[in-house]
C-alpha cells in the first residue's frame, strides 16, 4: 500500500516536471510572490513580462519561455527551485531573486554550473567584491548604492548630525555602512532594530532625545510603513527631516503610507519622470497593462529582460557559446529606462543616482526627481573583484 502511494506520487512528480518540448530559450525566474514582500516579486515579474509581451513573445527577436516560481523568501526553497530549473528544465539563464539571503544561497551555486544569473534586485556585497563571478550580472544596483547617494546628499544639504537606523541583518549593516561612506557629518545614533519589527515607539523616543539634524533609515517593506506612520504621528516630521533609500518610497508603499511620506527625500537609480524615450514608453505601457504605477522593481525587471534580449539578439539564441553570450551581456547594449547604463568590471552597474522628493498634487502622492547626485557611480567593492 505504502509503496503504491509512493509510486503514484513519483509518477505524478515526473509527469509534472517533464518539460514541454519547445525551441524557445528558457528563462527561469525565482522570485518572492508570497509573504509580506510578495509585491516586490510581482513587480519584477510584471516588468519582465511586459518586455516579453512588447517583443511579441520574444526577447531580442528570439522566442523565450519564462518560468516563474515563488521562493517564499526561503533560501532553501530558492535553492531547490534552481536545482530543478537546471536539472529538469535545462535552463541556462536565471533571474528574479528579490532578497540577498536567497541570492546568497542560489547564485554562487548556479553560476558554477555554467548558468547565467542576472539579478533584477538583490546585490549583496559578497557577490560584488571577492565573490564576483563571470556568469553573474546585476542589472539593478549593488546593495549599498542607494544608501551612498543619500549619504552624499545629506552631507551636501548641510546636515551636521544624523541618527541612523536599519534592521539587524547583513543588508541593514551594509546600508548603514554605505550611508556612512559618504556622510561627512556626525552620527549621533546608530541603531539596529529587530527584523520585522512593528512598533518603533522606543526608538523614536530615543531619537527625539538625541536631537539630530537629520534621520536616515533603511527599513524595507512593512517595517518602513510602520516607521514612517509612527514618525509622523509622533510629530517628528515637523522638526527633523527623514531620509531613506527608494525602497520605502516606491509607488505601492506610498499608497500605504499616505501623507506621512510627503516631503521626504529618497535616493534612487530610477524614477517614472526620468526624461528619456524608453522610460516614457515603459511607464505608459506598464500603467496601461497593469493599471498601476510601476515601481523601481518593475523598472529593474523590465531592464533585466531587455538586457537578456540584447545578448540573445547578439548571439542569435540559446547561450550555446558561453563566452559570446557573456561578452554580449557585458556590452549592455540595450535602452535602459534609466538612460545611462553600463557594467563595471564586476558586472555591476555603473550608473547615475538621483535624489527624489515625495510630493502630493492633484494626481496623488508620488516621487519627483530633484537632483542627480552621482554620475557614473560605481560600487565600493569593484576593486576587489578579479574580473
Amino acid at each position, binding site marked *: 500500500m505504502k509503496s503504491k502511494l509512493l509510486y503514484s506520487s513519483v509518477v505524478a512528480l515526473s509527469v509534472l516536471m517533464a518539460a514541454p518540448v519547445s525551441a524557445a530559450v528558457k528563462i527561469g525566474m525565482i522570485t518572492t*510572490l*508570497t*509573504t*509580506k514582500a*510578495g*509585491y516586490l516579486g*510581482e513587480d519584477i515579474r510584471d516588468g519582465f513580462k511586459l518586455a516579453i509581451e512588447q517583443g511579441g513573445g520574444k526577447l531580442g527577436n528570439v522566442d523565450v519561455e519564462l518560468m516563474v516560481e515563488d521562493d517564499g523568501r526561503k533560501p532553501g526553497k530558492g535553492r531547490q527551485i534552481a536545482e530543478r530549473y537546471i536539472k529538469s528544465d535545462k535552463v541556462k539563464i536565471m533571474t528574479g531573486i528579490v532578497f540577498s539571503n536567497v541570492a546568497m544561497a542560489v547564485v554562487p551555486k548556479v553560476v558554477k554550473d555554467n548558468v547565467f544569473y542576472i539579478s533584477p534586485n538583490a546585490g549583496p556585497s559578497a557577490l560584488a567584491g571577492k565573490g564576483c563571478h563571470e556568469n553573474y550580472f546585476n542589472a539593478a544596483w549593488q546593495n549599498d548604492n542607494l544608501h551612498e547617494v543619500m549619504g552624499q546628499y545629506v552631507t551636501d544639504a548641510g546636515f551636521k548630525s544624523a541618527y541612523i537606523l536599519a534592521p*539587524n541583518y547583513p543588508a541593514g*549593516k551594509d546600508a548603514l555602512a554605505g550611508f556612512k561612506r559618504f556622510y561627512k557629518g556626525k552620527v549621533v545614533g*546608530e*541603531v*539596529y*532594530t*529587530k527584523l*520585522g519589527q*512593528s*512598533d518603533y*515607539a*522606543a*526608538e523614536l*523616543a*530615543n531619537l*527625539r*532625545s538625541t536631537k539630530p539634524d537629520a534621520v536616515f533609515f533603511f527599513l524595507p*517593506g*512593512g*517595517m518602513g*510603513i*510602520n516607521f514612517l*506612520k*509612527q514618525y509622523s*504621528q*509622533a*510629530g517628528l516630521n515637523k522638526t527633523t527631516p527623514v531620509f531613506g533609500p527608494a525602497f520605502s518610497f516606491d509607488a*505601492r*508603499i506610498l*499608497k*500605504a*503610507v*499616505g*501623507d506621512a511620506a510627503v516631503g521626504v527625500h529618497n535616493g534612487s537609480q530610477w524614477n517614472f519622470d526620468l526624461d528619456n524615450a524608453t522610460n516614457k514608453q515603459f511607464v505608459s505601457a506598464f500603467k496601461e497593462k497593469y493599471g498601476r504605477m510601476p515601481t523601481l522593481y518593475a523598472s529593474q525587471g523590465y531592464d533585466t529582460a531587455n538586457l537578456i534580449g540584447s545578448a540573445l539578439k547578439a548571439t542569435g539564441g540559446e547561450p550555446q557559446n558561453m563566452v559570446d553570450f557573456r561578452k554580449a551581456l557585458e556590452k549592455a547594449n540595450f535602452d535602459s529606462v534609466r538612460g545611462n547604463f553600463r557594467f563595471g568590471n564586476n558586472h555591476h552597474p555603473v550608473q547615475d543616482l538621483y535624489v527624489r522628493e515625495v510630493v502630493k498634487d492633484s494626481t496623488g502622492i508620488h516621487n519627483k526627481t530633484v537632483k542627480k547626485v552621482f554620475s557614473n557611480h560605481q560600487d565600493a567593492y569593484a576593486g576587489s573583484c578579479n574580473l
Partner: protein
Amino acid sequence: MLLFIEQVLNGLQLGFMLFLLSAGLTLVFGVMNLINLAHGSFYMVGAYVAATVMQASDSFVLALLVALFTAGLCGFLVEVIVLRHLYKRDHLDQVLATFGLILFFNEGTRMIWGRQPLFMQVPELLSGSVEILPGIPYPVYRLVIIAIGLAVAIGLYLLINHTRLGMRIRAGASNRSMIAALGVNIRWLYSLVFALGALLAGFAGVMAAPVFAVESGMGESILILTFVVIVIGGIGSVKGALLGALLVGLVDTLGRAFLPDLLQMFISSGANSIAASLSSMGIYLLMAVILAFKPRGLFPA
C-alpha cells in the same frame, strides 16, 4: 528621567495593544480548551476591512463597526464549519487545522486585496498629539489605545463576573457536561465565545491599522507574541493576559530603548548589534524564566 517615563509609557501602550489581541485568545483557550493558531487571521481581517471601508467612506466609526462585524462573522463561520468538529480531539489536531486556516486566510487576502499593503489614516479627531510631559508631545492615538485597552479589560471583567452569560462561560470552562445537563446549549455558547474572541482580535486589528502596516501575514508576526503573553499570564485568565501583556510590552520596549547604551559601557565594538539580538530575545527569556519557576504561568486558571 523624562525619557525613561516616556519609554515606560511606550511599553504600557504596546502592552495594551497586545492585551487587546490576547484577551480573545485566552478566553477561547480557557473556556473551550482550544488552541487557535488562526487568531491572528481575525486581527488581519479586522485591519483589512477597516482600511477598505475607511478608504471608501472616510468614516472611522463605520469602518470600526463593519470590521468588528466581519471579524466576528468570520470567527462564527470558522467555528461552525471547522472547529466544532475538533473540541474532543487532541490539541495537535487543532494545531494542524488552524495552521491550515492561516494559510487559507493569508492567501485569501492576497487574492482579494492583492499584494499591495493597504493604507488607513488616523481618524481626524485623534490625530494630534498632546504634551504629557514637558517637551514630549505624545500622539493622542496611542493614548486612546491605552484607554481602549483599559476599557476592554474592565468590560471583560464585568461580562465574566457579573452577567448571566459570564456565569455560563465560567461554568462551561470548569465543567462542560454539568452545564450541558443544566440545559444550556453548549454549542451556541461556544460559537458565541469564539465569535467574541474573533471580534476582539478584529478590534485589535482596527486599532493597529493606522499605526502598523496592513499587509497579508501581519497576524503571524504578532501571534507568537500573543501566545507568549497568555502563557506568561496563565492560560484562560483575562487578568493574567493583562499582566502578561504589560510585562511583555515593557520588557520589549525598555530592552530596545536602553540595552544599546547599557552595553556600550561594557563593550566598544558591535554593541548595537548585540543589543539588538539581546532585546529580541528578551521576551522569550522572560517567558522561560517565568515558566521555569511557575510552570503554569502567573495566574493559572
